[in-house]
């Protein structure tokens, strides 16, 4: 088959009339031996046979945001497929991405601004105009701004990235509120906090095209991932085409585990222990690679020799023998030894973790263990290893900032809840607002977010939204009536991502940045409007101006401002081609090895840490004072980091690019952790709830399936048809002990409440666990997602498929019995620590 690349795709599409001329009849043709088939980039109607209009754009079903081609027939979007020119996706698109078509045309889509007409939650609505809606919002927001209290306007988002986030932050900055919430603590915050404490940045990627060995903990790459399509296709090809060994540690036999050389069942919350035990094997058997120790700090001493560091790592992991790990994790000691040896001996190896590993008590420390294992085997940011993700760096216009710029302290959890909530504690935002000690917003606006569904104890969160005494005015921008928008005072009809402009920047799987855009495939349905078009309108009504007039204008300006994209042809080029990468770019590896010139004005060496820093840039009063207080004792020094002195050479090393103040070492001994009473070195810390479990109690874990995002796809009919129910996975022995047979109705309960589902009795899960996917049990998500129509006047074009719905189950939602409870290090929601009982209903 022809492998299309960036250079020949458009050429091929344009010249295809000639290429295809031979043998093409009106309705039939043949080209035996003479024609190479084209993989994609063109599509035709199966009915009329006419070529469909092809428009490059980008997905938004999940955060992977694949670049893709949309096909339009008579003004209607009919098909999506991967962009054949993309170096990230290589022309592939997952099931969710393909079902993006359903996002535009599902019959319950919200198409008009709606004002609440009854009590909150009474489902009574009145259609209003956009003018009325914007005037109403301005009438709430302007007085807050004029009174010098812009922080009383809170905005919280679920999925905002790239220009969707940039336009929002730009508006909020110009308005003046810093009360902006996100959703990362329910996603994977612990993973980022663990990484930031070490290599000073975050988002690891895995170099599957070049790797020789892959070990995965608690990550289901073949079904779902934050960089799903770019990574999973490369992993399965590495496995089959190159015979790369793949080991998957998981409580459940996921599709990823199913394709591995071995599924290694592991008890809940023990991933970090097994990784530390692998470190134990590698250190004791002398299988470590010395190369990376010079970049590591493993004791208090900043100037330790490699030998001292090796001895210290050995000592710190000594207690995690494979036998000790077996006792707690259930993984046989010999299996740990086998995989540890294979991992260490491979020329390069990827250590992969995700939610299964980190959504726990001390989840951030589990990620630190993963980094340690990668570092001692010299697999950090080098070919075939665990690498720092490389994404596109766009330039974009910025509006003047407001004079008063303030925020409510509701984003980082309750006092002392989390030591380093650098990605916030989003699941506690509504509970904190209820609590009231940090103040309450007068206007709360959420977008692409469903707090009453996606957080723990979600029914309690719904009750907070419903209570008018807590927050008097609620706005949501959404395409679907859901568990949260039912309590809004004003619903704004958002566009789908297939009707809007964006530039995009998700990381590549090959260490070369890809710049790509999203453009509308069809005109927005009804009166739906892009948020990026709402901001300039709203700003005008409140009394300030933005640096752009529409989202399209923002994207156009960005394309003309961004080096590389600009020279390639800017906005017009991107509209036509959708993607761009620097053809001369080399894959980015080993950033820490860069040697740095430290002769610049103001650069001094900090004797204690070995950090070169610029005292002038840090804003120190004088060189003498800077030297006296030192790098660690000077506020602002972190931002003035220049290099790390290692054996007399100034390396870029691992700069502290995040909120962690640290030297340029990989901080496996972390002062930051030590001073807060947390383990300074990666440590096995048992999960408190699991230590006191009764004999008949089980761990509850949740997961994603291949055909759904967490909460934004239930109304996508092609996905929900395949998966609409979520029985509880339970091991045969665990079920037998409770008299439960496959298909039995079961109760799953704890102090928080009770849910009912059916039992999926299987040999594909470790005993002692019940696993329930977290997509279902929708109370509102339109007819496909919840079985009932949304109570809103006005609807999208009738969908004749509604009468073909054949399923009547809509599953159950496990979040109702999962408390909002944070990792004390990172503030991440501890999804996987919940303890339940299970009984036949």
């Amino acid at each position, binding site marked *: *088959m022809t492998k299309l690349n960036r250079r020949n795709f458009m050429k091929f599409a344009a010249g*295809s009339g000639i290429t*295809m001329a031979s*043998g*093409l009849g009106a*309705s*039939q*043709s*043949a*080209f*035996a*031996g003479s024609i190479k*088939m*084209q*993989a*994609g980039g*063109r*599509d*035709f109607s*199966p009915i009329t*046979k006419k070529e469909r209009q092809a428009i490059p754009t980008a997905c938004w079903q999940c955060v992977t945001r694949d670049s893709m081609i949309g096909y339009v027939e008579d003004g209607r979007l*009919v*098909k999506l*497929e*991967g962009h054949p020119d993309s170096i990230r996706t290589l022309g*592939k*698109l*997952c*099931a*969710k991405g*393909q079902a993006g078509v359903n996002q535009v045309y599902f019959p319950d889509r919200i198409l008009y601004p709606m004002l609440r007409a009854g009590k909150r939650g009474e489902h009574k609505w009145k259609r209003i105009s956009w003018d009325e809606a914007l005037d109403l919002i301005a009438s709430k927001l302007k007085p807050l701004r004029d009174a010098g209290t812009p922080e009383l306007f809170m905005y919280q988002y679920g999925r905002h990235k790239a220009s969707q986030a940039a336009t929002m932050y730009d508006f909020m900055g110009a308005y003046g509120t810093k009360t902006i919430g996100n959703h990362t603590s329910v996603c994977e915050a612990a993973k980022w906090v663990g990484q930031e404490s070490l290599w000073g940045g975050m988002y690891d990627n895995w170099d599957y095209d070049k790797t020789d060995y892959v070990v995965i903990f608690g990550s289901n790459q073949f*079904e779902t991932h934050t960089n799903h*399509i770019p990574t*999973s*296709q490369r992993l*399965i*090809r590495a496995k*089959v085409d190159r015979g790369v060994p793949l080991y998957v540690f998981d409580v459940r036999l996921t*599709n*990823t585990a*199913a*394709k591995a050389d071995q599924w290694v*069942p592991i008890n809940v919350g023990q991933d970090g222990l097994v990784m530390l035990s692998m470190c134990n094997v590698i250190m004791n058997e002398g299988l470590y690679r010395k190369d990376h120790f010079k970049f590591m700090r493993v004791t208090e001493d900043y100037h330790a020799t490699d030998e001292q560091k090796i001895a210290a790592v050995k000592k710190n992991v000594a207690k995690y023998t494979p036998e000790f790990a077996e006792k707690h994790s259930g993984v046989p000691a010999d299996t740990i030894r086998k995989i540890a040896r294979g991992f260490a001996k491979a020329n390069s190896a990827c250590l992969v973790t995700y939610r299964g590993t980190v959504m726990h008590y001390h989840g951030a420390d589990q990620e630190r263990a993963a980094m340690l294992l990668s570092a001692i085997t010299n697999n950090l940011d080098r070919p075939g290893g665990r690498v720092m993700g490389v994404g596109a760096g766009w330039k974009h216009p910025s509006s003047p900032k407001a004079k008063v710029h303030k925020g409510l302290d509701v984003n980082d959890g309750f006092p002392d809840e989390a030591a380093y909530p650098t990605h916030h504690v989003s699941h506690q935002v509504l509970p904190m607002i209820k609590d009231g000690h940090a103040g309450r917003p007068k206007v709360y606006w959420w977008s692409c977010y469903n707090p009453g569904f996606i957080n723990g104890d979600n029914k309690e969160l719904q009750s907070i939204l419903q209570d008018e005494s807590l927050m008097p005015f609620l706005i949501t921008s959404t395409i679907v009536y859901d568990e949260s928008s039912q309590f809004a005072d004003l619903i704004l009809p958002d566009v789908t991502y297939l009707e809007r402009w964006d530039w995009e920047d998700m990381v590549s799987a090959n260490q070369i940045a890809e710049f790509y855009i999203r453009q509308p495939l069809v005109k927005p349905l009804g009166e739906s409007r892009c948020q990026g078009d709402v901001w300039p309108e709203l700003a005008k009504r409140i009394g300030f101006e933005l640096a752009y007039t529409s989202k399209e204008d923002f994207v156009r300006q960005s394309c003309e401002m961004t080096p590389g994209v600009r020279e390639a042809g800017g906005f017009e080029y991107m509209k036509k081609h959708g993607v761009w990468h620097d053809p001369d770019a080399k894959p980015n590896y080993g950033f820490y090895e860069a040697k740095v010139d430290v002769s610049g004005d103001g650069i001094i060496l900090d004797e204690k840490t070995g950090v070169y820093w610029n005292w002038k840039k840090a804003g120190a009063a004088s060189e003498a004072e800077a030297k006296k207080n030192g790098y660690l004792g000077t506020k602002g020094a972190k931002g003035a980091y220049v290099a790390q002195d290692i054996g007399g050479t100034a390396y870029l090393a691992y700069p502290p690019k995040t909120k962690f103040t640290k030297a340029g070492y990989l901080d496996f001994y972390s002062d930051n952790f030590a001073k807060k009473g947390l383990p300074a070195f990666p440590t096995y810390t048992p999960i408190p709830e699991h230590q006191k479990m009764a004999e008949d109690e089980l761990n509850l874990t949740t997961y994603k*399936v*291949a055909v759904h995002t967490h909460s934004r796809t239930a109304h996508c009919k*092609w*996905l929900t*048809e*395949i*998966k*609409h129910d979520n*029985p509880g996975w339970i091991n*045969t022995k665990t079920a037998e002990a409770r008299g439960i047979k496959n298909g039995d109705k079961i109760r799953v309960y704890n102090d928080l409440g009770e849910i009912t589902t059916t039992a999926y009795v*299987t*040999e594909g899960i470790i005993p002692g666990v019940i696993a329930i996917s977290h997509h279902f049990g929708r109370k509102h998500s339109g007819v496909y997602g919840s079985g009932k129509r949304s109570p809103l006047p006005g609807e999208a074009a009738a969908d004749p498929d509604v009468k*073909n*719905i*054949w*399923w009547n*189950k809509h599953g159950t939602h496990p979040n109702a019995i999962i408390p909002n409870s944070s990792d004390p290090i990172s503030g991440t929601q501890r999804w996987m620590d919940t303890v339940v009982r299970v009984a036949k209903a």
Partner: protein
Amino acid sequence: MSDTKGPEISRRKFLSGVGTAAVGTAALVAPGVNIEAASSKKAPRWVMVMDLRKCIGCRACTVACKSENDVSLGRFRAVIQEKTMGTFPNTKKAFLPLMCNHCEGNKEDGIPPCIKACPEYPGERAKFKTSNGKTIRYRKGATYKRPDGLVLIDKEKCIGCGKCIDACPYGVRSFDPFVKAGGDPSKQAVDKCDMCAHRVDNGVEPSCVNTCQGRARIFGDLNDPDSEVSKLVKAYDLAKADNVLLPEEGTDPHVFYIDPDNILKTLYTQRKKGKLDHFVDQMP
């Protein structure tokens, strides 16, 4: 598979036994693939090779097909079957992609059972133009086989009798609730995978192939000895009965499976008579 109520698909009218073309040969009939002989012909022979080592059960193919062909809810033109096997902790799970096998038909007459069951076959005479300008004559019908091997449906000619649905041992055909049968508008037309003939005829791979992450689905011309499918058929000896579904039916399927783990034998859930719920893509 799992616990769901069957979709409407299984409740539609099915004719019993009449016209089924199961060839009662006891011995396994190897598919009639002969690369050397085939390469001298003028028309291509489109086939699919499914490399089961690379199928990760992601369902991109299932949904791509739904979208490409606007397939109504309750039925599929392509599905994945999956099954968990073995005893903990040595448990395995495997995936098996299914679609129309675009059968060659038995050795005697070269007519697949679905076509043999079609009351409208043989119908009008048609010409197939090859890339080198030659013409191959063949007979159409409400369902028929094109000289390039694609088994197609002409919904204008279809009378909605459902005999072909019943005759297909693989159960890949169903009534399309969106399209009336042209030959009897009181009934619905039959529908199934046509290998995206509308794309293939324009030199573009089928929609399920284009999006397959592991490149588990490989499409091409078996009459071209240099094609990837021809090379795979040769390299993996796919022309053996072991590498197609239900060889004992004598249908000579042209969807070949690279199957070192013997998934066809251990996983494949066949249709039950008068039912199609084996062909509904579901996850446990």
